[in-house]
């Protein structure tokens, strides 16, 4: 096994080899998840802490479930994002956690780059980015890749099919950490990514982004897509002034039944959640077999187990017998 990075701050920390490693190890943990007692002793004696400065249910619970299934001890620091303003310094909080002898900190923060700052302040513990501002959400992209690979046949065969896979990412890319991680992750595996959004919801510059195209017309992109990945319109990040109304956005970019009918039968529909039915995705589409939305959630635990195991586990996994 190649040296797995000490911190996971962005998809670029992994590269194609690291991504492949995570997906392979996740296979073992999907199998563990199907057991009556879905727990292995791999991280017994290790302690991980979740430190969430933003409300999140699914990501925090997914990480905590992953850590517990690996027999790690889990500490959950639920911090309101206002704590910093009240005078509590992020640096002091993190240094206190490190002094407790914790092995890894899983951090979500509304500020882009906060996990990078934290990684610069700690000496030994590993930092895992569970979503920072508009920057990245690497484990979300990894579980998307896992879901796609599974649907494409799994294993090395599924992996090979990423090359020249047509991936269409639709929605508020400007404010989306998920999109930044997805673009890097799909591109690392050789997929061709097209971004679809009104110009106001694209980043101000896409110079240097490893994408194939940008489009403002979803109808043009759907027929050739192998994967359609929908993003939530981030109204809490002020998207309201970027489009005239949700209704107009839905009309132009929502994946409704008419548009779903333009897709190839084998095209996958992904959504990182939380999904807003009736805005970026119509209910009748969200419930189609092509929509792998709940699959994404269950794979999330296995992928996060893989990340934690690779970062904190003492020895490399030797097939499922070791776990």
């Amino acid at each position: 096994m190649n040296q797995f990075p000490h911190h996971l701050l962005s998809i670029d920390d992994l590269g194609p080899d690291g991504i492949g490693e995570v997906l392979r190890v996740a296979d073992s943990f999907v199998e563990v998840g199907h057991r009556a007692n879905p727990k292995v002793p791999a991280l017994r004696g290790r302690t991980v802490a979740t430190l969430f400065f933003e409300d999140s249910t699914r990501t925090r619970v997914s990480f905590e479930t992953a850590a517990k299934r690996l027999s790690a001890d889990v500490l959950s620091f639920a911090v309101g994002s206002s704590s910093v303003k009240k005078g509590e310094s992020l640096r002091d909080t993190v240094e206190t956690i490190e002094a407790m002898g914790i092995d890894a900190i899983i951090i979500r923060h509304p500020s882009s780059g906060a996990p990078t700052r934290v990684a610069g302040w700690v000496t030994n513990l590993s930092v895992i980015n569970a979503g920072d501002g508009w920057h990245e959400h690497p484990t979300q992209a990894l579980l998307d890749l896992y879901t796609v690979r599974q649907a494409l046949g799994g294993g090395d065969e599924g992996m090979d099919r990423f090359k020249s896979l047509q991936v269409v990412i639709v929605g508020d890319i400007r404010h989306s950490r998920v999109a930044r991680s997805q673009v890097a992750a799909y591109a690392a595996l050789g997929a061709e990514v097209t971004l679809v959004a009104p110009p106001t919801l694209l980043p101000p510059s896409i110079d240097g982004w490893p994408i194939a195209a940008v489009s403002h017309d979803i109808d043009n992109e759907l027929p050739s897509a192998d994967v359609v990945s929908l993003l939530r319109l981030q109204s809490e990040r002020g998207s309201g002034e970027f489009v005239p109304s949700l209704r107009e956005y839905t009309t132009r970019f929502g994946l409704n039944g008419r548009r779903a009918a333009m897709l190839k039968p084998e095209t996958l529909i992904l959504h990182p959640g939380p999904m807003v039915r009736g805005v970026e995705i119509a209910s009748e589409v969200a419930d189609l077999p092509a929509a792998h939305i709940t699959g994404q959630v269950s794979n999330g635990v296995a992928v996060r187990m893989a990340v934690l195991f690779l970062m904190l586990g003492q020895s490399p996994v030797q097939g499922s017998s070791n776990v």
Partner: protein
Amino acid sequence: MSEPNRSDPTLIIRGGIVIDATGERRADVVVANGRIQEVGDGLVVPTGATVLDAGRCVVSPGLVDLHAHLREPGHEEAETIETGTRAASLGGYTAVVAMPNTNPPLDSADAVRNVVELARTATAQVAVAGAITVGRAGQRLAPMAELAALGVRLFTDDGAGVQSAGLMRRALEYARGLGATLAQHCEDGSLACDGAMHEGAWSSRLGIPGMPALAEEVMVARDIALARVTGSRIHFLHLSTAPSIELVRQAKAAGLPVTAEVAPHHFSLTDACAAGYDPVFKVNPPLRPQCDVDAVKAGLADGTVDAIATDHAPHAPEFKDLPFDLAPPGVLGLQTALSLAITELDLPLTRILALLSWQPAAIAGLDPSNRGGQGGPITPGAESNLCVIDPTATWTVDPMTLASRSRNTPYAGRTLTGRVRHTVFRGEPVVIDGEAQR
């Protein structure tokens, strides 16, 4: 304001090249009672005089900073007038313009008097810039005439631009009647939003909200139009973009009464510095891409830009130990500006000193033509505000050894060329051989 110093010894600065607005010559300089007594080659050392060696050095009028945040009153944890002017002296400055965004802001006679009083024992002249609007809130004019009566020559809401074009027009008209200059922090709030760095490829990749170059350009264009209509003087603070520099170039060609300054970080650093999310590189206006850096340098070279100003903005460490978007903008500048100009700019030293001393002195109204004692020329009878520079010496920036109370220099570890050897403020040698004397 210029009171020659008490019982300072007679000084002789020996063996240097004197450079001022009148030219360059080999000369010793004798200083007594706060004034220059004699300037000439091979002068006799007066009895009991302190000798300051200037061998292989340049003797210049003291530098004048148009733009320093001394933080007192209100943020003494970051800087005080004492520590800020000590840093200024070490950087070769004998005068700094203190920005009014203190707490309380410098928008009233009492607030200005307080700073003047606090600065009485400082090691450099502190010229107060007054606020244009009450509380720098951009709503109504501050009592500019009351402040002008206390010696305030420059008014600015720096930290924010005056957003209302109508109010800015009134301010320019009113200031003309006082002989004062308005200095604008050019940032259109509706375009800048809550941007924390330059909007572009790096901000897009890093996911940091961007502040477009357009936010600066739009206000520069607006204020040039206002200057044309009102005929009032306007000074543009810390310009950072190619279009802004070009607008000023055209305005000057049209004969409008505009001046402009740039900050050293805008000709020496780019927005790529934000890649590690370290807010020591967060500043407003933000660091820009290389094309803007090149335009700033071109503006300095062709005379479009009149001054290099530090925008010295100390922040206590706990305010920079934050995620990028939560940290306040600002970098230290007083001790590195001259060296950065020498290191980064391909300009003769005479031009660099014009940009750092006599040109800003004139903009601030501190030069002899405004009955001030800053910016030279170095001639008998003039107030002795001088600095002695070794233009070839190199040194490495160590945040811990800077005189500022804060440590937020973006140049930690950088080796720079050009060093201040001595600084003389009103006859007192406040820096000798690179050491602050008090």
